[in-house]
């Protein structure tokens, strides 16, 4: 069985997820081919370690258009009959990969974060029920499978040579959903609800002048700074940064709470976060009842030490 990786690109650059897919493909038996669907496929260098073949699929659009990519993927799968087709679990893939898999009657699973073999068949691991449980899924009776892999789980493949290049022509077809332009979000508008990692500070900060150093730490750690209500009430931070019942509800992968006691109204805004780490000098702080990890310590001491690490 062969593995087909579909590269993803945006605005002329190859996206990192492509390299991750190649690494994942390496875990499966069989030759690995990487398909590049683009106006000028050659512009994207996918000569990575583990890639045996590169397939150029030239299409008529610069950026992603779902009908075009759908037709291209369908052609690739019909022509090459790969056992496993890998794409990233990304916004663009969501727009066409399931369509192809459903139409062709293939096996399918998305947001996959683990791969394994069971005899000839591939077994994928994914989460269910809001990530509270995981499951191994397989695809009995399906010769071909399409999987969308969760980004940043697999390491990125290094460059490597040795891949041959072929092309697959695809007849031009209708594109009923056409890319017109891109729009950037206005800068400076921080949406804490979309951050994967929030460093959140509360009353324990005590002094407005401590905020800049905590903001700097957040940036170093790759976190977005958010706050609990008292700091917004005090006028130290805008309400867009506020987590809680009267602020925003957030569900980041990691919520690091420094100096937040965990009032009911605050917990309501963040308790479904993936991992909650709380630092507070009060061993009875309510947040320890909801946090996954806790430390009874001075937040500034811990922040100082974290700063040294990043």
């Amino acid at each position, binding site marked *: 069985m062969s593995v087909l990786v579909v590269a993803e690109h945006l605005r002329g650059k190859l996206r990192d997820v492509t390299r991750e897919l190649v690494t994942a493909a390496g875990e499966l038996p069989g030759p690995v081919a990487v398909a590049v669907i683009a106006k000028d496929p050659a512009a994207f260098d996918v000569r990575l370690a583990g890639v045996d073949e590169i397939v150029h699929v030239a299409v008529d659009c610069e950026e992603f258009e779902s009908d075009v990519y759908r037709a291209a993927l369908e052609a690739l799968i019909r022509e090459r009959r790969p056992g496993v087709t890998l794409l990233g679990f990304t916004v663009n893939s969501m727009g066409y990969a399931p369509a192809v898999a459903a139409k062709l009657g293939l096996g399918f699973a998305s947001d996959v974060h683990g791969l394994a073999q069971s005899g000839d068949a591939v077994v994928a691991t994914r989460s269910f029920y809001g990530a509270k449980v995981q499951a191994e899924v397989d695809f009995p009776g399906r010769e071909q499978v399409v999987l969308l892999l969760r980004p940043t789980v697999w390491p990125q493949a290094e460059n490597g040579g040795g891949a041959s290049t072929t092309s697959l022509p695809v007849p031009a077809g209708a594109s009923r959903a056409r890319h017109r332009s891109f729009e950037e979000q206005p800068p400076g508008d921080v949406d804490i609800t979309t951050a994967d990692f929030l460093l959140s500070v509360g009353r324990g900060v005590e002094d407005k002048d401590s905020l800049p150093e905590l903001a700097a730490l957040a940036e170093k750690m790759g976190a977005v700074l958010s706050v609990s209500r*008292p700091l917004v*009430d005090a006028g130290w931070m805008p309400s867009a940064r506020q987590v809680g*019942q*009267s602020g925003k509800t957030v569900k980041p992968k990691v919520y690091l709470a420094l100096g937040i*006691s965990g*009032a*009911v*109204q605050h917990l309501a805004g963040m308790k479904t976060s993936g991992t909650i780490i709380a630092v507070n000098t009060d061993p009875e702080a*309510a947040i320890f009842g909801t946090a996954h990890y806790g430390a009874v310590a001075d937040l500034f001491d811990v922040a100082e030490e974290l700063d040294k690490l990043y």
Partner: protein
Amino acid sequence: MTETRQTFAQLTHWEIAFWYGLIVVSTTIFLAGAVRLVVKYRRGRPEGLDRIGPRLARAARIVLSHSWIRRRDPVAAAGHLLIFYGFLVLFLGSGVLALEDDVTKPLFHFQFWRNGFYLGYSLFLDVFGLGLAVGLAVMAVKRGLLRPTRLDYRRPDRSENRARYVLGDWAFLGILFFLALTGFLLEAFRIAEHDPSFEVWSPLGWSVAQAFRAAGMTGQEAASAHFVQWWVHGAVALGFVSSIPYTKAVHMLAGPANVAVRDDRAGKRLPLLPPNPKPEEVGYGRITDLTWRHLLSLDACTKCGKCHDACPARAGGYPLSPRDLILDLREVAEGAIGLRSVGGIAPLYDEQADLLGNPIAAETLWSCTQCMACVEICPVGIEHVPIINQLRRRLVDQGELDTMLQSTLEAVHNTGNSFGEPKRKRARWAKELPFEVKDARREPTEQLWFVGDYASFDPRNQRATKALARILHAADVDFGILFDAERTGGCDVRRVGEEGLWRSLAEENIETLGNCDFERIFSSDPHTFHTLRNEYPLLGGEWPVVHHSQLLLELIEAGRLELSRPLPYRVTYHDPCTLGRYNGVYEPPRRVLRALGLDLVDLPRNRDNSFCCGAGGGRIWMKEIAPAGSRRPSEQRIDEAVALGGVDYFVVACPKDVAMFEDAIKTSGRQGTIELRELSELVLEALDLPADAEPETETVEEET
């Protein structure tokens, strides 16, 4: 000489006829106004009235004794008492004259207004007339010199010139004072004309008459002056009477009427929706949606401002003043269906127009914690809280609620609790106890503990819940809980205006309870206690319900709790709104605290005057809308406690109070100065149970 005087002494028949003509005109104007008011009230939604006789009797007692006016302001009460009785006596005094002149003399040839009766009458009227003047002076001083905040008509939600109101108030005082003054003057002139000696029984008039005579006034001059003064006084008096339905003076009619018709359970037992209601039947949207009683109550308002003063939302800087809400509604009623609309006098309102938005702002309605401080203190029995609730019902029905509130209500609908937690988690606290808690669904139990959301799910409150469980276990009380089957009682859901959701929760709870075998329900949550006790009967669920403070007191008094030693702390107790004002339970928690040996000192605003923590009415589920920098009601309350001096513990008996005040102690920087204790926690401490560690650090035997 017979002690009496000739009525209409100097008047010709034509003049007397003219006078009676004036009476007819003024009475007609008065009646027209009064009838038009009734027509206005009848434009409202119909509502039945029960027990009319007892209501009137009770209203008479309240009005005549001024018992509602007296509360929390004895000075204004004294002033008003003097004005009230002064006016009444003087008014009836004229009636007495008419009685003889127009009834007993012509019909029965009976004259009583002479001799002893006349002298007593004269003295009586003079004294009450003086009282009237003194009362008016008291009010003038209060209004003009002392300037209490509640008479400051400035609104928290908009800047507006209130000059019209102030003018109206002073005009009212002025006219009455003018009448008192001219009354005495005309009496003086009358006496000065012939100076009969028995008129000393009208001491004030007699003294002034003597002064006039001493100043050289002749009988002739006095007679002329008397004639003028008599007509002036008479015309103004008749003018005043005829104006009553059209001015501030209408409170003289509407006030007592409202006292008679008001619902004693206003706000405490909210009305059900009609079955299968159409959108226009849900809550209040237009002025004509108000019931006739509520329309009447709008006219009873005297702008005394007691509700404005008492309101915790206003004190916390929220855009709500109960007084202004009522006055706004009154403006609309008058301008849409009342006298102003008839006369085409601006500001006019369209009776079909939606109240919500203009002039009632949604934030005004959402600011309310439904604490009932306004209803409690209103001297004329206006029902601000149910009115706000009805306006909220319409907002909710139209889907106009803030996103926080919306998600909370959706969570309540989906999971049966306001935390959005899975049902299984409700009784998780019970698993951390060193004994098993009985499942009231499966076994008969004496006391069924309806725990409530905050007591079940909030970590800080779970400490108090576990403390109570341990106390009851130590006292060998047969109690059980409903575990996963419990749904939130719905008190605040109802007060937010989501009537359908409350009903659905209540019906579920009633069914669950109906399948259980128990003698009595108790709860440590006053909101749960309140709605189960007072509102579930509306849907057929009626059981005895008590609050845990009452249960604890019973146990202490029956000797079932071994209190090992008196607790050496100085504490103060905060009356929860739904336990205190709503249900009158003030003493049991205090008696429990005293039985523990604590030095209990009351907050300045206690019992029925307790100051709400700010969580009620669903506010704990809503976005913060007070302007930045304003001091929240809960923080103000902590200030009040700290100001008592030397208080170790701020004691509460409501789970929402626990959450609000723990937060307030932190945010106002009072950690270390004062600590919060829930009632059960102190009782537990006094029990000194063996191996008495804080419940959550105790090792737990889990059943897996």
